């Protein structure tokens, strides 16, 4: 004779446990959850506000970092630019020849 599946026997026994107590709401639960839920629904605008502020902060940080990192190079490049300006300035060359 084939033995009955022990799992099926076990769940059949477990199902004999009477149903749990009535599904009553804890006091104040619905009010609290409704308030939280509605507050959450109003939040997307605030979320984007926070996001925009963060983006602004990040942009400022990038600007400051770029200025700090790029500053030492600028005098050199300025000097180079002046030298090349001197070289390529046809008026200056003409005046020099006179």
């Amino acid at each position, binding site marked *: 004779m084939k033995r009955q599946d022990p799992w099926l026997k076990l769940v059949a026994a*477990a199902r004999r446990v009477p149903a749990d107590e009535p599904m009553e709401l804890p006091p104040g639960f619905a009010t609290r959850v409704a308030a939280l839920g509605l507050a959450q629904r109003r939040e997307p605008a605030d979320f984007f506000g926070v996001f925009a502020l963060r983006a602004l902060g990040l942009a400022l940080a990038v600007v400051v970092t770029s200025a700090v990192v790029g500053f030492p190079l600028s005098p050199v490049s300025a000097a180079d630019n002046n030298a090349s300006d001197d070289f390529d300035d046809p008026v200056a060359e003409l005046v020099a020849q006179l």
Partner: protein
Amino acid sequence: MDDQAPDYDALLAGVRRGDQAAARALVEVLHPLVRKIVRSHLPRRVAEEDLAQEVYLKMFSRLEQYRGEMPLPHWVSRIAVTTCIDHLRFQQRRPELRWADLSETEAEVLDAVLSGSDGEDATDALAAKELVGRLLEQLSPADRTVITLLDLEQKSVAEIRALTGWGTSMIKVRAFRARRKLRKLFEQLERKERP
């Protein structure tokens, strides 16, 4: 028993307008359903009330996604089931079930089940339920959910499909896998662990 179905459309319209009373009424109307799902799929160390609250907050935040293609209770029950599964995923799986870990009554029930004898009193039923819970903890969250709905709550595949949103074949595969794992657990307990 209610002879009149709640007017979900009116409640939803109220919630969309930000009406506190409508939001509260919606929670009250849906609570028996949500609490039943949460209670039967509750992970260890998670309070039933906290999990139910999480389900409602997800419902409120996703309300714009609800297009009315299915009844609202079905849509909310899917949120409840997936929230429970997410929590079960975070819960660390229990180490291998050993005979020595069982209470005296659980061991008696297991012995009776394995030897094929029947016990009919309420104590046995309670111990059997505890034992079922211990065995279910050995399964993956999704498999556990399917087998709970199928074998404990005796829901049909169509009902599980509506509750979870999973396809028929996925439900059947999960049920098959879960039962195979449970069979192995019983064999293991019987061969290696039975005193």
